[in-house]
C-alpha cells in the first residue's frame, strides 16, 4: 500500500460536476479560506504558510513563505501567478486551471493579501483557451460574489485580478521572461542579480511570482492551518504533490500524493497509480522531473519522489512530471526530440544556448538517421560542456537563465546511460529501433 490516506488538497474538487463553477465551488468549501484569511492579519497568514513549509510547485522548489519574506517593502507590489505551464510532459496546472479556476483565484487572493499586493495578474498560457475562458468566467462570478474587487467580503480590503493570456513561448515560464512578456515585450529572461522579481519585478516594482499549484494549496493551508499541512510529507517536502505521469505506463494521469512518501517504483507500478509499464514491456529509463531533468536508469526506481532525494541522486523533481520509457524505445530518438524542443524554444539571447542547442539537435539528428560518427559522442559532450561546464548536476550556468543548462540533461545523460545504444546507431548505420526514422517538420513534401 503506497497510497497514503492523506487528504487531497489541490485536486479534491476535480471530477465533481461542473467543478469550475462558483455554485460547485461554494458547495465544497469555496472561498472559506479567503474569508478566514481576511479575519487574520497578513502577517498571520504569512506565518501559516511559513509553518506549512510550502515549497514552490513550479520547478525550483523554493519555500513560498521565504520568497514572500524577501519582498522589498515598497509601493506598489505586484503578484503574478505563473500559469504558463510548458515544460514537456507537465500537465498538472492545465488541469487545475480548467477544472478548478476558483481555487486558483482564491489562492491568488490569499497570497495577495499576505504579501499586501496592489494588483494580481493571472498569467495563463495562451494555448489554454478553455482555461482562459474558465478562469475569466470564474473571475466574473467571483466579482459578483464579492470575493474580488472593492471591499472584499466586507473586510475593507480591495484588489483587482487581471487574467493575462500568454502567446506561445516556453521561455515565458521562466519568471523574469514572464514579467517581460507581461510588459508586452519579447520573452527575454532578465539577468539575476539584480532582477530578482521580489526586488525588481514587474515595471521595476517588487513582485511575487508563484506557480498555479503553489497558490492552489493556500485555501487549504489557511483553512486547516500550516501545522496540518506540515504534518503531511517528509523533510522539507511537506503537504501533497501533484505528479504528472505520462509516457509508457498503463494509467497516465495526474496523481496528487502525499509528498515524499512514494518512490518511482510506487508511482509507476502501483495498480492505483501508473499500473505498470504498458504492453507488458520492461522499463528502460525514467525522465524524473520534466525534460530539463537528467535521466534516471532503472537502478533509481527506489528513489523517493521528494525534492531532496531526487537531487541527492543527481537529478531534479522539477515540475513533478515523470515520464518512463520502455525497452522498445530508442533513447537517441527521445534525446533528439528533447534537444529539438530546446532549440526551438531558446530565446536566442545567449550564445551557448542559442548555438549549442542547434548543434546538439543537428548531431542527434544525424546519429538517429544512421549518419553519425563515433567521434560525435565526444563532440556532443563537448558542446554540452560549452553550454554547462562540467556537465554535472546541479549544472554550471553560462547563460542568463536555466534553459541553457537544461539542454545537456537528455543528451549527455542519454550518452552516459545508453552509450552502447548510441554506438549501435553509428556502427549499424541505422536506428535499431522501429520506427528507424525521424521526421522533421517541412522535410516531407506530399
Amino acid at each position, binding site marked *: 500500500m503506497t497510497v497514503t490516506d492523506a487528504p487531497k488538497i489541490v485536486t479534491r474538487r476535480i471530477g465533481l460536476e461542473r467543478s469550475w463553477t462558483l455554485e460547485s465551488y461554494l458547495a465544497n468549501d469555496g472561498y472559506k479560506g479567503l474569508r478566514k484569511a481576511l479575519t487574520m492579519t497578513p502577517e498571520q497568514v504569512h506565518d501559516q504558510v511559513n509553518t506549512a513549509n510550502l515549497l514552490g510547485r513550479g520547478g525550483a522548489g523554493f519555500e513560498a513563505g521565504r520568497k514572500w519574506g524577501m519582498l522589498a517593502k515598497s509601493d506598489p507590489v505586484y503578484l503574478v501567478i505563473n500559469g504558463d505551464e510548458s515544460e514537456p510532459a507537465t500537465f498538472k496546472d492545465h488541469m487545475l486551471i480548467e477544472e478548478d479556476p476558483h481555487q486558483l483565484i482564491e489562492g491568488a487572493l490569499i497570497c495577495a493579501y499576505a504579501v499586501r499586493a496592489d494588483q494580481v495578474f493571472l498569467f495563463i498560457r495562451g494555448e489554454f483557451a478553455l482555461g482562459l475562458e474558465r478562469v*475569466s468566467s470564474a473571475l466574473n462570478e467571483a466579482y459578483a460574489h464579492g470575493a474580488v474587487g472593492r471591499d472584499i467580503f466586507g473586510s475593507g480590503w480591495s484588489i483587482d485580478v487581471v487574467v493575462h493570456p500568454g502567446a506561445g513561448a516556453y521561455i515565458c515560464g521562466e519568471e523574469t521572461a514572464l514579467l517581460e512578456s507581461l510588459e508586452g515585450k519579447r520573452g527575454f529572461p532578465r539577468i539575476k542579480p539584480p532582477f530578482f522579481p521580489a526586488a525588481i519585478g514587474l515595471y521595476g516594482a517588487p513582485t511575487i511570482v508563484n506557480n498555479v499549484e503553489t497558490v492552489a494549496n493556500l485555501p487549504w493551508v489557511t483553512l486547516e492551518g500550516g501545522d496540518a499541512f506540515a504534518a503531511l510529507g517528509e523533510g522539507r517536502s511537506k503537504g501533497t504533490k501533484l505528479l504528472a*505521469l505520462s509516457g509508457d505506463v498503463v494509467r497516465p494521469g495526474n496523481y496528487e500524493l502525499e509528498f515524499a512518501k512514494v518512490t518511482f517504483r510506487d508511482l509507476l507500478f502501483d495498480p492505483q497509480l501508473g499500473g505498470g509499464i504498458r504492453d507488458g514491456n520492461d522499463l528502460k529509463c525514467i525522465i524524473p522531473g520534466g525534460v530539463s531533468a537528467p535521466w534516471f536508469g532503472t537502478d533509481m526506481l527506489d528513489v523517493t519522489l521528494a525534492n531532496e532525494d531526487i537531487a541527492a541522486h543527481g537529478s531534479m523533481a522539477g515540475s513533478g512530471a515523470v515520464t518512463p520509457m520502455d525497452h522498445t*524505445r530508442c533513447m537517441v530518438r527521445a534525446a533528439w526530440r528533447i534537444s529539438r524542443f530546446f532549440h526551438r524554444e531558446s530565446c536566442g539571447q545567449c550564445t551557448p544556448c542559442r548555438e549549442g542547442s542547434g548543434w546538439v539537435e543537428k548531431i542527434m539528428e544525424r546519429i538517429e538517421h544512421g549518419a553519425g560518427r563515433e567521434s560525435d559522442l565526444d563532440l556532443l559532450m563537448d558542446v554540452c560542456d560549452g553550454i554547462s561546464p562540467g556537465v554535472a548536476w546541479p549544472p554550471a550556468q553560462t547563460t542568463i537563465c536555466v534553459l541553457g543548462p537544461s539542454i545537456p540533461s537528455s543528451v549527455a545523460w542519454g550518452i552516459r546511460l545508453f552509450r552502447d545504444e548510441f554506438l549501435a546507431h553509428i556502427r549499424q548505420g541505422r536506428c535499431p529501433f522501429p520506427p528507424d526514422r525521424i521526421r522533421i517538420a517541412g522535410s516531407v513534401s506530399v
Partner: protein
Amino acid sequence: MARLTPENEQRARQLIALYPVRRSALIPLLHLLQEQDGYLTADGMAHAGQLVGLTTAEVRGTASFYDMFHTEPVGRYVVAVCTNIACMLSGAYELLEHAEERLGVAPGGTTADGNFTLEDAECLALCGNAPCLTVNWRFFGDVDTARFDRIVDDLVAGNLVEQVPAHGTLNRVQRSVGLQASGATAHPASPGGAIPADGILAAGDHPLEERPTPRRSVGETA
C-alpha cells in the same frame, strides 16, 4: 480588414485600462487582432501600436517572438499536433504523418482550399491523453488516425462550431466587471484608460459547458 473595428477598438481600450502600464495590453491586443482577422495584418499591428504608444517595429518585435501569432494568413482551422516526448511515445509522429497525408500538406503548410493549416507543435500539456492536438487552440486528446479523420470531417461539415471557434478567437468570455488598474499604484507615465467608477465594463458572461476531452485524473480508473 486591418485596423480594429470601432467595436474592437472599444474592447482594446477596456483591456488597456486593466493594466498600470499600457504596453502590457499589447499581447491581449494582438490576440484581439488575430481574432478579428485570423492573423496579424500590418495595419492592425500599426493600430495596436498607436493604442499602446509603440512603433510598428516594436509591435512586430513582440509579435514575432510568439508561436501563436501569425503574420501571414492561415487556414480557417489551425491543427497543431503535439510531437513532444509524451505524445511521441504514444504515436504522435505516426499521427502527424497521417495528418500530412489526409490534409495533403506538410507542417507549416495550408491546404489549397484554405481550410487547414497543419503545425508540428511543442508540448500542449495534455500528456495524460497523448497523443493530443489542438484545433484553433481547442484540445482533443487520445487522438488516433480514425479520430483524426472524424475531427477533420466534422470540422468540414460544420459540426464543431461550438467547440472550435474561428482561428484567433482565444477567450470568448469578456470581463464583466473590474476595478481601474489600481490608480494609486499605477505608473503615472503611462496610465491606462479609465473604467467607470461603478466598475461595469461590459455585459456578456458566457459560462462554458463544453469540455471536448474527458481527462484522466486522480482516482479514475483507466
